[in-house]
């Protein structure tokens, strides 16, 4: 029971962390195209 709770807790936070990294990738790609577009 405790193990399951721990697992779901980690899963929930893992999604949050994945979201943060996803946003970082989106920002970097957007900035790359921003640089190229206005060059």
């Amino acid at each position, binding site marked *: 029971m405790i193990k399951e709770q721990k697992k779901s807790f980690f899963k929930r936070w893992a999604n949050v962390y994945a979201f943060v990294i996803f946003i*970082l990738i989106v920002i970097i790609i957007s900035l790359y195209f921003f640089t190229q577009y206005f060059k």
Partner: protein
Amino acid sequence: MSLIDWLVLAITLLFIVFYGIWKSRGTKNIKGYLLADKKLPWYHVGLSVMATQASAITFLSAPGQAYSDGLRFIQFYFGLPLAMVVLCITFIPIFQKLNVYTAYEYLEKRFDNKTRSLTAFLFLLQRGVSTGITIYAPAIILSTILNIDINYTILFNGIIVIFYTVYGGTKAVSYTQLLQMSIIFAGLFLAAYMVVHLLPENVGFIDALHIAGKMNKLNAIDTTFDFNNRYNIWSGIIGGFFLQLSYFGTDQSQVGRYLTGSSIKQSRLGLIMNGLIKIPMQFFILLIGTLVFTFYQFHQAPIFFNKVEVNRIENSTYKKDYEKLNSEFEQVHVIKKQQVDDLVKALHQEDEATIDIVRLQLQESNNKSNSIKKELTTLMEKNNPAADTNDTNYIFLSFVTQYLPVGIVGLLIAIIFLASMGSTASGLNSLASTSIVDFYKRIFNKNATDHNYLSASRWATVLWGVFCMIIALYANKLGNLIEAVNILGSLFYGTILGIFLVAFYMKRISGTAVFISALVAEAFIVYAWITNLTAFLWLNVIGCLLVMGIAFVVQSILNKQK
């Protein structure tokens, strides 16, 4: 500055200070004073963390840096979201569960007292000097605008911060920061709107970006790998990650902010908020700098933005040389303005061939302006070897005071003050808590009463405040302030982070091994900096990896001796 601007400035500052004092009334014990009773929600933690990092230097130097160097500084922050994730997984749960007051307390539990004291000492050294610089930064403004001695402005700003930090401790710091960040965001949007509004009628926001872009000012991403290039995507992600991880994970001025969270979850959410907002916020500030650059393509910019240095050269034997350079600079501007007008026309007509031709012409004219400016700074150095030849910090302020309407000038100057106050207050608070918890309470007076520690914390805040003001009085020789702070941080953060990473992830390493490795690594980092071995961001990576590698070797030797 007009009377209305002064009123706006005074009312904003007074309101914030009294709000902080009012919200922190009734602080009676050391937990309340240093950790705000551990009751703050995530958005409070997040804004407080952001306000601590965003000092006045951010708002003074960053737009100026974008003006002269483009957007590439943004890459410096790419490692930040990754660092936030690692902090949430490793650092926060450990610090919160052990119920520590400072990050260094954990090191004694894991290693020994000498490692704790060494790390706390390195922090005090670095943070003491950095906080001095954050007091100095806004003092430039008043001394430039009012033409008064910079020393008086340093004392004025320093005393206000010491006053409310001593009175309310962490609570006052956090509550003032909450309000400060709200006003700062509002002011920044207003500034961006005003720059675009002041452009000629036929030039819109997108045109302004095209002009800046064609003159190489929107170079946000640089994918070339070069160890000696300060800002590229690799140094930003790898070097920036290590710098931000050490700053947020081991610098008490930041650890002290998220330790105030009411639970692990609240502290984590606060840091994630910082990870998501920081890059867009910094991009926005830099973008304001590039818009100011575009603005000055239509209006004559001064050849050098620091009026004090210009006055000095005007009153020297080099006056005629200066006048000649100035007139050449103005002539280039006339040519450039014509070229920019041609570019706008070509942009509206979508005439790609003309755009390409004008872009090359503009870049050539811009190079000419830069080389004239370079000649002037050489002249300034010839006239006065101690001259401050870097005017980056003055660019945004000159624009604000010269072109923005009454009222907004006061508000924007208040923002710079508030930002400085926020990060200075966090700095003083963390210096005091480390001095008291890691040295006074641990070594000098182990069994005193809570009241004794509380009053010792207040005195420590006063003493560190005085120390930082003294540093501020000598800070004017450091060039670009934002870089000076980051370079200073990079000298110590790598080593400190290495110690913490060994503590978290290398369970077999003892205190003696990590202590020896930290001393050797720090000596090498100072050597690498003096000999210009690599760009400063890499010092964080090298310092950290050195501590981990040497600690492993030393521990193996110690094990064999046993």
